[in-house]
């Protein structure tokens, strides 16, 4: 399921393992070590996302990795960065530029002016105007703990 998701953004090879319904980015040393320890881990390496009800939800760490190699990006201004991190959608006035194809329903990595990943957005085009629907953003790190 993770492969289906990453494939959308090009050929990114990830060495991962699965615990229950969650995926983790690992290396051989981590796997070797975990096999020597007799307990079941909660997590190993970097959390990449999880499967729920037949759907894959990427982690913010996975988006960060994929965004570095992707050409499907939207760059946003300061004001857009803050709004997006508060879980809001983006409007044209927030956008600096869009890279890659612009089509209704396309997923795009949302980047700030430093090309750092803030999350994932979906293009919505209505009456010729572009809106970016917030699918997931790094503000989630705060919201999760509330």
């Amino acid at each position: 399921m993770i492969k289906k998701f990453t494939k959308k953004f090009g050929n990114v090879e990830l060495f991962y393992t699965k615990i229950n319904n969650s995926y983790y980015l690992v290396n051989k040393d981590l796997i070797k070590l975990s096999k020597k320890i007799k307990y079941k881990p909660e997590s190993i390496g970097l959390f990449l996302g999880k499967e729920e009800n037949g759907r894959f939800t990427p982690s913010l760490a996975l988006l960060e990795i994929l965004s570095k190699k992707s050409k499907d990006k939207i760059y946003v201004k300061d004001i857009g960065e803050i709004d997006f991190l508060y879980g809001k959608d983006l409007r044209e006035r927030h956008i600096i530029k869009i890279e890659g194809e612009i089509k209704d329903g396309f997923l795009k990595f949302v980047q700030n002016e430093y090309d750092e990943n803030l999350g994932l957005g979906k293009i919505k085009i209505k009456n010729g105007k572009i809106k970016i629907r917030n699918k997931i953003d790094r503000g989630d790190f705060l919201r999760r703990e509330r």
Partner: protein
Amino acid sequence: MKDLLERYRSLGIKVKKFNIKKSIRITNKIKVSNLINRLKNKGILLKKIGFLDKGFYVTKSRFSLASTPEYLLGYFFIQEAASQLPAEILEPEGIVLDMCASPGGKTIQLAEKAKVVIALENQHNRIKPLLNNLERVSVKNCIVYNIDARKFEFKVDKILLDAPCSGNFIMDNKWFKRQTVENFEKNSELQKELISAAIGNLKKGGELVYSTCSLEPEENEFVIDYALKNFDIDVVKIKCPGDNAFTRIFGKKLDKRIRYCKRLLPHKTKTQGFFIAKLRKND
């Protein structure tokens, strides 16, 4: 409360409440100078903490640090100055065990230098914040277990045991109302069990840092004295702010090597209260 205040006088601790400076630790995800400049442009000013590698006081901030994009991008961890010391003093390398890991500030510090960090957390509700922080900072070399550290068995090169403790009055306004000597003694028993398990998991020649944010001898010097009496270990001299730990207290004569451990007294270090000991398992 009166008894505890008298006890503190005998321990040389001035009970003067003050607000400690907010501090952060910059992670390996960004170049230190880049983050300083980015935050400066937003009106957040930082000042280097002299005794720490990547610790900074926040001298001016107009808004909550945790709501900045830089925090959400994992470029820093909000972490009190004294609590940044144990992981630095351990000098992590090889396989490192973090016995009481959540919320993960020290785990992240360890992971920046260790080959692998094995992070243990006993309380299930503290696992989520730990995993969130590891993901936020993109830590790739950590394995997390939800397990009582006293039961964990695996030999490692280095161990950080930042033990559960009674805390201190700087971080808790009602500390004197909440705490009793019986509490300290109860904590001490748990801490002795934890340090015993830690030494059991340490390879010969391996090193262990024991720390608490408590100023009570029962939770600090007495625990180290117990470890020195029962295991083939030695105390390693450490370089950090603070007073030498007690070797005579409450009518008890403790192992002289304990003087190499440090107690950070708030009125002197301007940090929260802290105790740090570094031990080496003999070959």
